[in-house]
Structures are given as C-alpha cells and as structure tokens.
C-alpha cells in the first residue's frame, strides 16, 4: 500500500492531519498565502494557495485540503500563477501600495511584499472601496480597516487561539467589517491587548501603535530574548533601530510561547527606556543619596564589608538575590556570599 503522495513530481510521505499546503511547504514548494496562520483553522478565503490535484476539475485551496495517499499535486504552473496574479490585482485595487500605512511608516506588509514578488501593480481595476476606520484611541493597537482584506486572521486568532472574543466580523460580503461587539473601542471590549491580531495581520490594517513611525524595516535589527515578567518564559524579539529599543515582535519558534505573547510581553517592555532609570551609583552622604562614581561607591562598600567581616564574622552578612535578574548575576551573588564573605546567608525573593 502506498502511503505517499506526489507534489510537483516529488514523492512525499503522508503525515496525519497535514494539509497539502503544509506538506508542500515542508518539501520546499513556495505556495503564497494571505489568510493562512498555521495556529488556527484555515479559512480558505484568500484563494492564493490554490493548487491543482489530478482528478479534480478545479484547483483546490491547499490550506483546507488534507494530503492523502496517491494524490498528485501541482503547486505552480502558468494557469495557477495567472489566477494568483488576478486575485492579487483584485485585492490591490482597493488596497494600493501607496496608501498602505505599513509600507510607508513601518516597512512592506505581507500583502504588498507579495504584490512586488508577483510584479502586480495597484491600478488594474477601478471599483468601490470597503472598510472603515473606527474611532479608537487605545495606545497600543492602530486600527485602519480601509487596509483590511478580510482574511479573518485577526478574528480567528482572537477567538480561536486567544479565546478573548474581542473582535468579530460584522455584516456580509463586500460590506463586512471587523468590529468589537457593539462597535465598542478596544478599551471598552474584551480585548486583553495581547497584540496577536497585529502580529498576524498581513496588511497595514492592524499595527503596533507604539512602533509606528519609529523606523522602517530595513533599519530594524531583531534581537532574540526572553520576556522578563512571569515564569512562562515567552520568546520575544527586541526590535532595535539606531541603538534604541523600539518595540517587540514575538519569537515564533520559542518552545514555551510558540509566538504568543500577553500585553506585558508585547507592549510592556518600554520601562527599560524610562527616564527614571538609575544611571550612576548613589551613596548616602549627610543622610541624602547622592550620585557617585563606581570607584567611590565600591570602595565604600568594600571597606565596610571588610570591616564588618573582621569585627563580626561572616554571619553579619545577608544577601538577597533576584528572581527577576539573569542567572549569571544570581550565581555570582551567591559566590560573593559563599566564597568571598564565607556565609550561606544567601536567599532569593521567591519566598515572598
């Protein structure tokens, strides 16, 4: 019995629950998509991922069909590519590149990157324009549904993945809009500001308000890190432009979070830029904490430690480390306690 199928002439093993799209991408085929997000059920609405399957009269949406034994799939030929171009032309007719806020203020969005790849311009068709810009003064999520292509990635992520049920599609067909129930602003809705809608949106319809206008894609470096709040350990990318932290994107490959974040990881990292950060050591002089050099502060500290140790022994010291600080600092603090001061009076803040 055969347990393989063929994609673009290559033999592919069948994996349970895998769609044609996933199998095709696994073996290196480049199948374009706009409405696909691997974490939620496919909606098969953008039709860009259509492929030909032997025995089927019409091309099928590869995201929504399982690869089955003996299937013979073609992911690309002139006809399919022409179909895809037509779809992109239709989409672009109401979402021209020159009006895309993402492309202007942030860097190319998924839609317009794809349009560039396919050499498709915005001016093929004239027609009505759909989508409206809701009143929404929240400080985190920029919403501009004039850029929306109704791929429903945001609503599926919000309802299926996050189960926050903050936004839903309203209306039908061309008149469909994405709204918070009762047309509330996001602050008045169930929205938890996890930012997952922003991260999945393939256009400039939903964007990180804090990051907008800060830098365009080619000037941004993404540095992989770990969220510093709770114990889940979500993977984040610190977006840096000209040496400045400008915002966060998720690390899609992080094992604990798999691309998800909450409001703290997504929007809560800018405390590091706070003007309240300490920038020099402080030493209490005449009862008041005053700026000092490192040498002054550490000389004072070490003199005091030496004196106390000579007078009262190691038991006169207590060191409390931080469950928020990296392990390397924690390790050296306990080394200072055990190996240098000679005390096991080292504890951390997890008890309290």
């Amino acid at each position, binding site marked *: 019995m055969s347990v393989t199928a063929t994609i673009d002439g290559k033999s592919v093993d069948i994996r349970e629950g895998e769609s044609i799209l996933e199998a095709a991408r696994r073996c290196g085929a480049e199948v374009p998509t706009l409405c696909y997000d691997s974490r939620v059920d496919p909606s098969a609405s953008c039709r860009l991922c259509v492929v030909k399957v032997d025995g089927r009269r019409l091309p099928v949406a590869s995201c929504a069909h399982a690869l089955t034994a003996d299937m013979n799939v073609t992911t690309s030929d002139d006809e399919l590519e022409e179909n895809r171009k037509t779809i992109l032309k239709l989409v672009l007719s109401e979402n021209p590149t020159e009006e895309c806020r993402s492309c202007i203020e942030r860097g190319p969005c998924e839609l317009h990157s794809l349009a560039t790849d396919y050499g498709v311009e915005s001016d093929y068709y004239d027609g009505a324009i759909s989508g409206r810009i809701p009143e929404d003064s929240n400080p*985190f999520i920029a919403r501009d549904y004039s850029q929306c292509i109704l791929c429903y990635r945001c609503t599926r992520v919000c309802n299926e993945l996050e189960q926050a049920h903050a936004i839903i599609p309203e209306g039908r067909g061309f008149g469909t809009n994405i709204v918070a129930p009762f047309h509330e602003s996001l602050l008045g809705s169930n929205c938890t500001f996890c930012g997952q809608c922003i991260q999945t949106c393939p256009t400039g319809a939903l964007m990180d308000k804090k990051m907008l206008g800060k830098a365009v894609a080619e000037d941004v470096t993404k540095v992989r890190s770990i969220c510093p709040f709770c114990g889940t350990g979500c993977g984040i990318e610190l977006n840096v432009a000209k040496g400045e932290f400008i915002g966060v994107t998720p690390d899609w490959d992080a094992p604990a979070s798999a691309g998800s974040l909450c409001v703290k990881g997504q929007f809560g990292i800018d405390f590091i830029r706070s003007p309240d950060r300490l920038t*020099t050591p402080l030493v209490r002089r005449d009862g008041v904490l005053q700026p000092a050099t490192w040498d002054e502060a550490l000389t004072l500290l070490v003199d005091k430690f030496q004196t106390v140790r000579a007078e009262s022994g190691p038991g006169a010291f207590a060191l409390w480390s931080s469950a928020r600080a990296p*392990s390397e600092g924690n390790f050296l603090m306990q080394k200072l306690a*055990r190996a*240098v001061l000679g005390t096991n009076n*080292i504890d951390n803040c997890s008890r309290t």
Partner: protein
Amino acid sequence: MAVMVGRGAMTNSIAELENAKLIFATGTNTTETHPVLALRVKRAVARGAKLIVADPRRIELTGLADRWLRLRIGTDIPLYNAMAHVIIKEGLYNKEYVERRTEGIEELADFVKGYTPQVAEKISGVPAEDIIATAREYATAGNAAIIYTLGITEHSCGVHNVQSLANLGLLCGYFGMESAGVNPLRGQNNVQGAGDAGCTPNYLPGYQRISNREAREAWEREWGVPIDPNPGKTKISILDEIMEDKVRCVYIMGENTAVSDANVLKTRAALDRVEFLVVQDMFLTDTAKMADIVLPAAAFAEVDGTFSNTERRVQLLNKAVEPPGEARADWEIFLDIINRMGYPLHYNHASEVWDEQARNSPILAGINYDRIRMQGIQWPCPTTDHPGTPYLHKEEFFSEKGYFQPVPHVDLAEPPDAEYPLILTTGRRRPTYHTGTQTGRVDGFELLVPREGLEVHPDDADALGIADGDLVEISSRRGSLQLNAIITDKSPEGVVFMTFHFPEGVLTNILTTDAHDPVTETAEFKACAVKVAKVTEPEEIPASG
C-alpha cells in the same frame, strides 16, 4: 514536593498541557498571571480535555471549567485528602505504580480514612458529590495534569497543601507521565534560575545540599576556599537577626522587598535598623530609597545571560541595547566587588559565568550558550549530547522512591473573628506586575488598570453600607489604608480582594500577615483577617459668593 519525589520543580512542559485529558487547576488564576501558558489550557479544553478548577474566587478559568470547586480559603488539604480517600477506597489508584515506585500507601490510606467527602464538604464547602466525581475523573483520566500557583503555596501550610495535592499525582502514577504531572507555575521569570544558581541558604548551585560533602568539595576545589557546611539563614530569619543586631550588612539585588513583603512594616523596620544596606536595581525603588549605597543595574535587554523558565528551560538573553549611563550588568558588578574584596577573578563574558555554574552542577552540566542559541534546554541535562528533559521522574524519582505524605488540615493562621470579620486575599491583575516598578512605567498601561481597588462582595457591601466606588478604610491588626471599593461577586461573601501593584497610593502589604510556612517561610499572603468601613468624607463647604 521535594521530600516526596526529590525535586520541587514543575514536572512537565508547558506545551504538554495541550494534550492532557484532564487538567486540575487549583489556586491558580492562570489567565491573569500566566496568560500565554493559559492558552495551552484553553486549547486543551477546545480539544475536549476536561477542566476542573478549585478556587475560592470566580475567575476566567472557572468560566471555562467543566466543574468549579469553590472551596473556602485555606481548606485545600481536606479537599485533596478526601479525593485521596475516594481514589483509595474505590481502588482507582495505579496499583502497579504505587507498588513499584512509592512508599507509604498504607499510612496514607489509614490517614485519609477520616477525610470522607462529607467531612471535607463540611470544612471546605465543596459538595461531597463534586469531590467524589472529581476524584474519579482525575484517577481514571489516563493522563491528568495538576497545575497550581501561589493560591496553594502562599499559606502558612503551603508545603502541606502541595504535599496533599502531590499525593494524588503519586497515587495515580501521574509523576513521570507525559502531559500529566504536578506542576507549580513560577510567578517570576527567573525564580527557577535563582534556585538553579544556588541562591538559597541550604543549596549550592544545581540543588546540591550544602550538607552534601561531595558537592561541597567540588565547589571548594572550583573556588579554592572552604565552604561553610551549615545552611545559612532565610530572609525571614534574617529580619529577626537584624533587630538583634546580629546581621549588620544586607545586600539586595532587584527586589522591592520594602513593598512586596507580607507585613511590610516589619521589613521596613528591619531595613531601617540595619547598619549598612546595599541595593542594586534599575530604579530607585522604595527599597533603594532606604539604602546606604545604590548600584545601577542593566536591564535584561542590555545584557547577555540566561533565564530559566517555569518548565526548567534555560533560555538565552541577547544584548540588544546599551544600558543607560553607567548602569552595569549584575554579574559585572559582583565581579568587580569580588576582585576588590581580594579574591582575584576574571570572566571574559557572561557565558563563562554560566559555564562555571554548569560544570559543577550535574543537572546543568550539558547546557552551554552555544547549545541554547536557537532554543532553550530543559534540565536535567547532564552531558552536552543530552537533549534535556521535557518531563521529570520518567523512570525514577530524584529520591529513591516516591514518598506519600499524610498531612492534616490546619486552620488559617489568622481566621476572621468578631473584630476583623472579613478575609483579605491578595493576587494579581494581568496588565500589572508585582510592585509596579516596571509596569508602572509603561506608556498606556495606566489606562488598563488605573489604580488599586478593593473588591467587595455585594452582600458584604450591603451590610457595610458601601456603594461601588466609595472610599473605604480597610484595617488589619497591622495597619490600615484607604482606597475605593469595587463591588463584585468574584470573591465569595466574607472575602475581599486586592493586588499589590500600586504601592504609591495603596501599600497593600501593610495589611498582610507574616505568619508563614515553617519550612519554606512563605507568608500567608492569601488570607488575613480585616475589617472594612466606609470613610465618611468631610462635608464639602459650599463656596461663598
């Protein structure tokens, strides 16, 4: 849990939760405290897993649950003992596993005989039939995962709470099974890492007991100095020693202890008294304001380093930006001090600090920066070709056997009485974090949770004549403060709720009790007796003219 299976860490992995057939969530407001981890619970439920939630408060999880066991605060032990009672009595436990891998089943069986579901109902308020059904479903699920957080541990019987819960996992053979286990969810990003690094009075790095001569000798060889074989003092004991002038110098890194401690005025009195206080932090916190020397620390984004998450995964931080001004990485500050103290030491990079920690810690020995560049590794990882350990206790426990712990119910350290008739329980809200040092400085977060409020049950509010938004005064035996009331039935009648996120206006921990667990010394943040009264505002004087 450490005395039962040799380790207290989360047994399983976060991702495994998705495939649990049953999740028993107790004392955890996961959607608020661990929102991304909670997605796994939600996905498990969407896939058909049963969710049973034990919590005194109405939280998001109770809305998702198949069954909500609304126990009275501080009655966890009778609830779990009664579940054990049912599981043993009905022969639902994993006999082969219990026989082969555990010790003490007879003692446990004997002990929980008195904890019938009816007895437990009387104490906890959870209907006996719900206890029976939960016990049966848990035991027969095939693979069931327990998750818990501070609702279990922040009690003066926290250790016993955990043990009575872990008895259930041992009975059913869920320790050492994929998508099962008994899983404490760590509240802070690097609680696990601070423990891994040996920042406890009784453990060297890698959870090697200070009394373990072999381990001590390994570190003595590494450091070239003798190590005191006697455990040090915990933070709670140190506070007393400061008051006795035995401890003269305290060095605090990255902890706002003058806000976050239970019965915080006691902590403040000690920090006031101590001869020499050093605080290393990113901000001039309330704790730092009390210091003699404040050292500016770099933030996580400004250093290379590691955090260990709740599932024991050592994950890499990469330096993205420069620290402001003269702030320095924590490890560099300690290195400087150690050298100045006359102990010559040099590391070129944070990775060398890690390597020193790992090479003498068998559970970490196989982990290095190069291996975790793309994805973290879960300890134990003894060698560099070991893939890490997604779930613990598979073939064997860290201890020789799994040891059941029969534990009795005890009352709250400070039960409500005529003078202080209500229970204050404390917790968290999602957009804010701990003492607000960081989330209080994030643009826009003030719109999500603008200020602290006291959640009061409508029936209590009626009895006290309090309306939503009224200014109220809440008092415990230790202090009192004023804030606005939020009328909600999230907490049961007789229980009021607050967080400690807004210390500038509302220093919640003035109220909380420092009564603590005798073993972990974790305080009973989850319950203290209080009274609440409406503040009669001074009458407004009409403007003249």
